[in-house]
């Protein structure tokens, strides 16, 4: 059996060197080794979207990636989307619209919405709904989440 493998990953802009077992998922690596617990683990098979992160800028499920696969790549978690102090515009819109209740799905929603807005700064409501269709929320009811993303896509800073 292969022993631990040395990896170098750029996590939220910081170079991280680590030694990981091949079977360690990226999600567990982020949560247990780096203590970046904003990445939530729900279903662990790619359905719920709570563990969504950005891999080289693209949304991906951290539960369906191995940490060893991220060697030499760039990973951004929900923690990496906030400015040094306070909230990002998107995060502030989530708060303004009460787009969360229990908060479990929120990191995945925010990361997914961030990826959408990076690609399509002015999405239609239908595009927003389609973009978050892979993220399950069991309490908010989606409408405030869509409202928050639509608000964040409006021009002007707040």
């Amino acid at each position, binding site marked *: *059996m292969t022993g631990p493998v040395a990896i170098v990953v750029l996590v939220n802009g910081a170079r991280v060197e680590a030694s990981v077992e091949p*079977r360690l998922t990226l999600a567990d690596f982020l949560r247990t080794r780096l203590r970046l617990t904003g990445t939530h683990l729900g279903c662990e098979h790619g359905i719920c979207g709570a563990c969504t992160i950005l891999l080289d800028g693209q949304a*991906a499920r951290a539960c369906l*990636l191995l940490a060893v*696969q991220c060697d030499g790549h760039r990973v951004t978690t929900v923690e990496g989307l906030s400015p040094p102090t306070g909230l990002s515009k998107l995060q502030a819109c989530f708060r303004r619209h009460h787009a969360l209740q229990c908060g479990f799905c929120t990191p995945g929603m925010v990361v997914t919405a961030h990826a959408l807005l990076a690609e399509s700064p002015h999405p239609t409501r239908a595009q927003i709904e389609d973009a978050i269709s*892979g993220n399950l929320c069991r309490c908010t009811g989606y409408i405030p989440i869509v409202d928050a993303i639509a608000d964040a896509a409006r021009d002007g800073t707040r």
Partner: protein
Amino acid sequence: MKPPAFDYVRAHDVAHAVSLLAAHGADATPLAGGQSLMPALNFRLASPALLVDLNAIGELSACAVDDDGSLLIGATARHRHVETSSTVARGWPLLAHAMGSVAHVAIRNRGTIGGSLCHADPSAEWPALCIACEAHIELRSARGTRDVAAADFMSGLFTTVRASDELLVRVRFPRWPATRRWGFREVARRRGDFAIAGTACTVDVDAAGACTDARVVVFGVADGPVRASASEAALRGRRPDAAAIRAAAVAALTGLEPRSDAHASSAYRLELVRTLTARALGDALGVPA
């Protein structure tokens, strides 16, 4: 829900990957996008001794037009790449369009054509699309290279003819005639969920408006995609008007005996096949179903 222990090798080129598969045979599993394999590992439904990671092999991720005008999609080309490629949208619009029904963006950013074909899920889009486009699949091993028609690749539920030492390298989609029409419809509980049933079709029509050839493939209703030959025969040589489309949609049910499960009964799946085939053909031919 954590994967069992395994060895891991990041293959640096196709020859390296093929040599690992030759040495380890059924104990080794190629890792492409991981969007089906990783859940199987997390559930411990799969426990390979060795994962051969294909993601660093640059040549496998290419998606480009060959000298003869056919489209070559490498095994690790992502669904999202195919979805957003202007080359694919221009020459093989069915493929680009249908990618929108494959799971969700975060999954499409990682999932690959080669992984989907080798996984051979009966409700998956890629196997049906490959048959509807008469694609050919290239398998490489230390023993050589072989070319398998897409229709012969899937051999049953989650089963293909790929031997354990073979690597799916790329898929060749013949160039479409300029007059080819296409349609794609599927029903899932929510967009991006596994299809309950679906139809993909390509139809060729001559200058007089008669159908010269058609490929109608239904999926989600048997152990693998099914080419609806009776449906194709009902169209061939005819002017595909609304009546011809209705007849072809009914013919698509020939020989189908879908399973009932928690998502849909067998009878409902048959009704979906009839309706979706009529709509897909209607889309292809500009005839409202």
